[in-house]
């Protein structure tokens, strides 16, 4: 009898509600963030320096090739058009100094003329980022393993060319229907000339410090990876085919 009374006092719906609300709060506010780890890009790349500072346009690095494929991240070949350090000469100088060519810190510390004289940056911090790029990648003949915020797996065929004509101003008419697919902020203000913001980090072209890449700890995908339902939603709204083979070739 005693126990039953106590139970009535402390029990009922209250513990249930507490448990319910607690996990609701955790499930909405805390746990989703735990699915991702933040990873920095391999080197600091400032779009602002290249676009505002050097007056480059997007197509200088991100362009369509003659066959319609998209260049995506620039290769060393493209970067070397401006960062004109000769890898052969640099390696010869490193060998002359007796430095291990894979000891990046030692190479940077040695401040070799063949590298230093060809750095384009003026600020110390930017020069250090450029030096890192040259030493770790350019002269080593290794491409920078940039982290792709919009990573898609190999079984998805995405053509930038097929999406190049999408117009943000036009899509703004269906921003309500697209609210789950595209960040509504993209449709605010005057629509930019290019439609990159639809899928990519907003206004990345003026970004100075690239945001961290948020990697899903289970799937390995980027937090920004567009899921299939989003592709399908937009295709449906635009009257485009949604057959499997449209994207899974």
């Amino acid at each position: 009898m005693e126990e039953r009374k106590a139970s009535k006092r402390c029990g009922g719906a209250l513990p249930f509600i507490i448990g319910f609300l607690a996990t609701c709060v955790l499930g909405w506010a805390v746990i989703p963030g735990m699915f991702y780890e933040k990873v920095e890009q391999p080197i600091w790349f400032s779009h602002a320096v290249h676009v505002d500072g050097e007056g480059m346009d997007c197509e200088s690095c991100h362009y369509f090739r003659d066959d319609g494929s998209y260049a995506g991240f620039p290769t060393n070949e493209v970067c070397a058009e401006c960062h004109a350090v000769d890898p052969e000469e640099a390696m010869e100088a490193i060998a002359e100094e007796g430095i291990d060519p894979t000891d990046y810190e030692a190479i940077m510390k040695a401040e070799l003329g063949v590298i230093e004289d060809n750095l384009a940056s003026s600020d110390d911090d930017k020069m250090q980022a450029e030096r890192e790029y040259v030493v770790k990648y350019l002269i080593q003949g290794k491409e920078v393993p940039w982290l792709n915020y919009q990573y898609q797996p190999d079984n998805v065929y995405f053509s930038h060319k097929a999406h190049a004509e999408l117009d943000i101003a036009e899509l703004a008419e269906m921003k309500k229907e697209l609210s789950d697919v595209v960040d509504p902020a993209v449709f605010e203000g005057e629509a930019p000339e290019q439609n990159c913001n639809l899928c990519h980090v907003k206004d990345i072209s003026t970004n100075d410090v690239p945001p961290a890449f948020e990697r899903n700890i289970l799937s390995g995908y980027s937090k920004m990876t567009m899921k299939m339902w989003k592709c399908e939603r937009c295709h449906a709204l635009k009257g485009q085919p949604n057959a499997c083979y449209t994207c899974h070739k």
Partner: protein
Amino acid sequence: MSVARRAFIQMSVGATVGILFTPTVWKALDDVSIWTQNWPWIPTLKYGEVKGVPTVSKMCESGCAVKVRTVAGEAFGTEGNMENPLSGGGVCPLCANGVQVMNSPSRIKAPMLNGEEITWEKAQEVVAEKLEAAGSKVAVISGDQTGTVNEVFSALLADKGSDAFYTMPCDMQAADKAWTGLMGGSGQVGYDLENSDVVLLAGADALESWGPTVANLKAFAANESGKFYFAGPMQTKTASVTDKWVPVPAEGMAAFTLGIAYYVLQAGKTAPVADFGQFKAMVMNDYSPAKVEAATGVKADMMAAIAKDLLAASNPVVVPGGSVAAHGAAFALNLLLGGGMKALPEFGKAVGTAMSRSEMLKADILEGVSTDLLFVYEANPAYALPEQVKAGFTVAFDSVNTETTAAANLVLPTPHCYERFEDLASPYGVVSATYSLGAPVSKATLNVKNAADFILGLADLGFETYEEVLEAKVEAVGADMDELVEGGAFVAEGDAPVAASMAASELGKAAVPVKGSGSVGLAPYTLLNVGTANQATTPNAPCTISNNQLVGDYMVVMMASATAKQLGVEVGTKVKLSGGNGECEALVQIFEGVLPGIVAAPLGMGHTVGDEFSKGKGDNVYKILTVSSEAAAGASTWAGSTVNVAKI
């Protein structure tokens, strides 16, 4: 039950229900499902610019002009090169798998001396020592018919006072022995398949394995109005698309051709050579259609009909295959007819002391090689000529393991042709002298060295590197290096053929059909997807080999039902074929497109060394070929091989 426990359970239930109202569970399930698709062993794609990089491939005997498809600089496939006349956009089945072979686990990874890995410096030391000791007893066997690398090897021989340069047996050699040797002609013989109105393929399986197969196919496709005959002991793939198949045994091909010449001479055709009268008398007396019919089984009416077509044509051509006699007879017939046979000029040499191509083709490997020091360059004599080659010390250059590298004392790995500078000068059969060149498409990932660079380190031949040799070659050719590297070809038109003689006395004797003593004739045939004497089948090709060549691991031989009845065998019977000094095992298939009394067997199988695609597949028909002497022509031939067939 305590209050706390009850409350805890109630809270847990609430928490469980609550979590279902959040995205957590569903997201976790979704992520886990994606995680299960991302196993570490699943290959990932490489992304980047897709290019078609022009170069040349040497996997088939004539070589192909190709474009290697790369993504972000990494080779992944091969396609034809539209800009090069050798390809016209096409590629042969062997060269089509160049990248797969380049990445094969069967590649040789480092220099090996008697099975032990050594350094290149040590290899250089060993070879220099052997070279010193061998004096002039040095020989070279080259599996490359068209490369300037042969100039480097032959210059080394000249430096040592040797002329023992051998090529693997090929139609180019038989043609040269007949044309420049017997008939006193000059240049390399070529054939205008595209513009000839009547083409007699006298033993040349031109659309499958003879000559520049890809260029032949393009010419055949472009020659819509031309009439094509194929003469041979079996209805090959070439025969299946020509206007007419004329069943002729290989050993009877020369007599058959002279039988046609009989009608052509009868029609009053002449040739401006000193022994024309002697030639005419020889043909009219010894190769009358009745006599040829008796010797070969080919009806006189058939020869008359072909001769009529050839005589009526404005630009006829006869394309031979097989023995030296068969080539001589065809060249004589072409001289009478005029038309599509051409004499191609040879390009200038890069290495002054090197042999000319014709000189390189003089030594006959079928007569045997015995030497103190032997260099084998990308050839497989241990597979195709197991009894003919004897050497005190063998140095084998190759990019993949073969029977020859397995038997060699010293194995020196070469880069794959997509990893090196390589050239391709006038493959035998092309209508115009053609020069192509390729630069490396991929960086070599193994401890390899170009054979020519290695040889240039052994003797002072006037060049430090093979790249310098090729620059000199391009200059001697008169071509532009940049244009060649971009995939174009340098082309020099062929001339009308001029001979000093029609080799009347030699042909009169050599054209007589001679057969071995076996119970049935052997018609060996080559399919490029099955392989050649030097190149085993390639990784993607086995799935294209039909049940008429291979069933399981058993080779298949084809014969007409009359032959099967004579031998007491039927479809699927397991048989042993004995010929030469060897034996082969095979299954029987009935095909009425094989001459009665003949067994057709595919060459290129039965490798004992190699990758999973070729090793242990079928049997090696080279073991049962019989070398017979064409004494009158000063050559040897496999034509006329016979075998005994016994049920197992």
